[in-house]
């Protein structure tokens, strides 16, 4: 099981930097992130190299944080590949709660991070369909 961290934050100057400073001070590498805002407050998703440690240090610093399970799929860096993935997900009635992606270092592939709602077997299903689903270890260190 792989996780990213979801952090509550007020939409005010300095709030985001408070988080990045904690990561920096604790030598935590931020691999990818997404930010959703509802005007006055928002939620930040953090994909880091060491989620356990990050969870603890954020909590120690009195931040409101929770772990959320993710599925990471590698797709080719070509037109239509993300569409193909989404097509398979919708065909199988899998709903996405949240999603973001980042290019991998080879430049030819990208990792798509998915928060999948109420579908415990999604990973198996995606593997079965021929998708390259990353293990937790790979997601954090790839």
């Amino acid at each position, binding site marked *: 099981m792989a996780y990213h961290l*979801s952090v*509550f*934050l*007020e939409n005010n100057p300095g*709030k985001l930097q408070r988080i990045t400073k904690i990561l920096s001070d604790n030598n935590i590498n931020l691999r990818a992130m997404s930010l*959703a*805002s*509802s005007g*006055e*407050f*928002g*939620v930040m998703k953090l994909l880091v190299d060491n989620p356990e440690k990050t969870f603890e240090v954020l*909590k120690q610093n*009195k*931040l*409101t*944080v*929770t*772990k*959320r399970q993710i599925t990471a799929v590698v797709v080719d860096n070509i037109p239509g590949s993300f569409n193909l993935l989404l097509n398979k997900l919708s065909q199988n009635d899998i709903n996405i*709660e*949240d999603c973001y992606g980042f290019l991998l270092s080879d430049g030819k592939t990208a990792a798509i991070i998915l928060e999948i709602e109420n579908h415990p077997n999604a990973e198996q299903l995606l593997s079965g369909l021929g998708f390259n689903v990353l293990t937790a270890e790979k997601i954090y260190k790839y």
Partner: protein
Amino acid sequence: MFWQKDIELMDREEIRNVQLDFINKEIKIAKKSEFYKNKLSNIDKISSLDDVKKLPFTTKDDLRNSFPYGFLATDLKNVIRLHSSSGTTGNPTVVFHTAFDISNWANLSARCMYTAGARNNDIFQNTMGYGLFTGGIGFHYGAEKLGMLTIPVGPGNSKRQVWFMQNFKTSVIHILPSYALRLFQTVEEMKIDVKKDLNLRIAFIGAEPHSEEMRKKIEELYNIKAFNSYGLSEISGPGVAFECQCQSGLHIWEDYVYPEIVDRNTLEVLPDGQEGELVLTTLQREAMPLIRYRTRDLTKIITEPCACGRTHRRIARITARTDDMIIINGVNIFPIQIEKTIMSIPEAGRNYVIEIFENNFMDKLCIKLEIDNDNFGGTLQDLEKLQNKLENELKQEIGVTPIIKFVDAGSLPVSEGKVKRVFDLRNKNK
């Protein structure tokens, strides 16, 4: 079952006889004070309890205006203690006690705690403030009188509170309801299992008006019974009325005070069962009797006999203190309505403040609520859903649409004593 069976089960007629007797004694003592010498100049005694309504009221302003010694009704050599309000908004209200007053008050506090189920083999942790505030010292004396092992920790330092609770197996705690909720965060942080690691069974909660929903939340969190305590420093302090094990209204000790409920506007005495302002006449005070003191607390008298057998009538949970009323664009709101609504939504946080400000000549009500690890699911949708739910349910309860703001855990001010939740930022000089 009973601390003072003969008093607690006294029949109604006898109670009324005792009360008439006591009121006449109190009038006599009161007239030795500067304030009542004038106020009661043409009254020496009353011939029946029906005549109480002919006596003049006493208000908090009277106490302030007679600062410092205007209400003292005995020689200074008999006075052994004073308690006082903080006096942030003018002269403080000062209350004097003789040795008899203190011992009587201790007995009353003991009676309250015994009524709720505390016994002399209990271990009692007092987290209320000691000092001029009556909450801590009042129950301290009562707990010792009852014979409990009393731990006078005082307020604050949550880790130490939990440490004492765990190591000495505290079974009874006296705590502000707002602090009980906050303390639980420390219990969780210290990874304490309330069922395995603690021995808590009873909490006395008071000194702040609180809702039934808040009591239930405290009972759930700690797996205990929480009993509502009512008192006010002008009368002595905690111990004036208390819940028995039926937890359905608070027995007001009618050998200690004579209660009336009056209409807030006309000040006419209301029949039992109708809600109005509680007015109390002390029955046994020596240093400082108070005649028909207007408490500013809103409640009603419950006349039906209580299943516990005590004959002293009950008052309903205090619904509000008139001083606390907020008027927003002409609508009257009591903070406890807001608390009740927030507490009834399990996914809402426990720490909040109410801010009132003006925008474009309109009053705005803003509720800031902390999002902490207990109520954060991790998605924006959940937060938005909670925001809408709070907005709708509060609108239904108070008739005003509030602005709901979510803020970081720990960002709202924390106070050691009674919690300050309402911040009125309107310009009052206009």
